[in-house]
């Protein structure tokens, strides 16, 4: 599994608190039994009118096509546990998300896809969003070793629980193999529970 240490690319600001997973991906797209087409749907109802014509949304603007870092605000990804939400962002091209805070299940789902969900202060997020808005061509550098984001003349610290940082940096973010390795201990734990 690949190590996730440095992520470079342009950033797309998606401004607003409590952006929930129903907004990131409307439930009707959850009817597909594979994730393969999810990249077509992020923020669908905010990007397209009923007749398919485009609305003004950062994910539609030409300057943010090909962006790989999403800049969000408070409680990003709240709501349902649907992995379809991070899947849709990742398959659209997002490889790191920086926000003021994340819903817990969403942040966990991101790590499972090798995508860091990084927390920065309100002020720093505002600065990053402003830069991405004013100068969308700016290259952002996410660094999980120094735990910072550098863009233009800005360098801001970011946070990620150490266990998740380790999993990404060491390339063990796909946890199945780690969990399988302890099969004997799993059996021992199960035997002690008294309810199996």
């Amino acid at each position, binding site marked *: 599994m690949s190590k996730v240490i440095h992520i470079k690319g342009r950033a797309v600001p998606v401004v607003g608190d409590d952006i929930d997973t129903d907004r990131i991906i409307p439930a009707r797209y959850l*009817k597909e039994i594979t994730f393969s087409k999810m990249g077509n749907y992020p923020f669908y109802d905010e990007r397209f009118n009923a007749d398919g014509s485009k609305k003004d949304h950062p994910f539609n603007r030409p300057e943010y096509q090909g962006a790989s870092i999403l800049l969000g605000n*408070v409680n990003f990804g709240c709501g349902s546990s649907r992995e379809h939400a991070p899947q849709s962002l990742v398959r659209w091209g997002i490889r790191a998300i920086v926000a003021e805070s994340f819903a817990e*299940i969403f942040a966990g789902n991101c790590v499972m896809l090798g995508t860091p969900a990084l927390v920065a202060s309100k002020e720093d997020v505002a600065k990053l969003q402003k830069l991405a808005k004013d100068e969308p061509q700016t290259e952002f550098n996410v660094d999980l070793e120094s735990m910072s984001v550098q863009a233009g003349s800005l360098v801001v610290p970011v946070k990620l629980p150490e266990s998740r940082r380790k999993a990404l940096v060491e390339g*063990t973010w796909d*946890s199945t193999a780690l969990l399988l390795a302890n099969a004997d201990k*799993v059996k021992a734990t199960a035997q002690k529970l008294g309810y199996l």
Partner: protein
Amino acid sequence: MAKNTLYNKVWDAHNVATLPTGQTQLFIGLHLVHEVTSPQAFDMLRERGLKVAYPNRTFATMDHIVPTKSQIRPFADVEAEQMMQAIEVNTKEFGVNFFDFASGRQGVVHIIGPELGLTQPGQTIACGDSHTSTHGAFGTLAFGIGTSQVRDVLATQCLAMDPMKVRRIEINGKLKSGVTPKDVALYIINRLGVKGGLGYAYEYAGDVFDSMTMEGRMTVCNMSIEGGARAGYVNPDETTFAYLKGREYSPKGADWDAAVARWKKLASEKNAEYDDVVRYNAADIEPMVTWGVTPGQSVGVRQTLPDPATIADSGERQSVELAYKHMKLKPGQKTSDIAINVAFVGSCTNGRIEDLRAAAAVAKGRKVAQGVEAFVVPGSMKVREQAMQEGLDKIFTEAGFEWRLAGCSMCLAMNPDQLKGDQISASSSNRNFIGRQGSPTGRTLLMSPAMVAAAAIAGHVVDVRELSV
């Protein structure tokens, strides 16, 4: 770090090992599976040549996509039919227990776990669904997971987890008449905010929860996630044990006695330490209604809608402004000024028998207002059967409500039950997010099942206490 709480005991008992990343490998005692978040996980097992590690601890059903008017196969919706076939094939191939229509046990996953006695105190429970927090009502540690984690649980019966903090929410005193567990849940979220619970498990305690029924406790625990808390629980007590006694999967005979003895040791100790404690007075809680686009944007039914200008935090103010725009409502409006088009009683929050009884008590002998589309969706086939034995279906249909088959229905509208255009619904479900009920411009008002029934009859939001039951 919390100490000596139920959370600590359950976590420690299921702690398999510390992973190289520093995370805990947590054993999952019960894995619930539904059709929407599992097909990709089963595919991942196939790709990697893995089996389901504990098929006897894995139980599947279908709820999200099933139509509630007719469940005759094949479903009219081709994608829904494909999804049904996928769960049928997957559960068969991997040897997983499956509650389909023919079993008579199908229903919303969080309703059937408890009603079958699968959910038991002291378990860890995971499901690819955020409202897994519901099961915490039994003194379990239960939380929602994403599809890659579903894969992990299927393959290993374990999850890689970081510990949670524990906040005790204590509500003492007596609830006013007409105030239900749903109102308690909405009140807590209103006070602590939709992100107040990030990183926490909530322990609900105090007089209000001590005297609450199991179904009420499930309603409150269900909504933990709407307050940002991935899990919420109530310490198990005699009410818990009485609910479980005699259920299909509950222990029997000597096993029952041993189980109860074990369950009695689970509650948080008197000397437990919490990361945070908040206290509220039961008497301050009114029947609640959401007016916005997050479950925290709510008011007591007799209050007027809030003024965004009074909100100091810019992010929150923007959220509220967005909510007003979407909802086409105005600050200062009375809740009773909000006319509704649709009334929905159902979901894993409020689709259990007590919820249906509460709604029926309001509907009895009354008529749904003209122009309102009202329907009742039992949370499971068993709830439906019980309701029909009690004659609730007749009360509803005589009042003008449609009586449907079990499923998630308009809680998330992945099935034919959807709002159209900017219709506004009174809904006993749990989320009022933009687009949640199937129409990008649709609008949702969350409230208790009794309040939904009252709104259906009045044609607008109304304090249920004004319609004397």
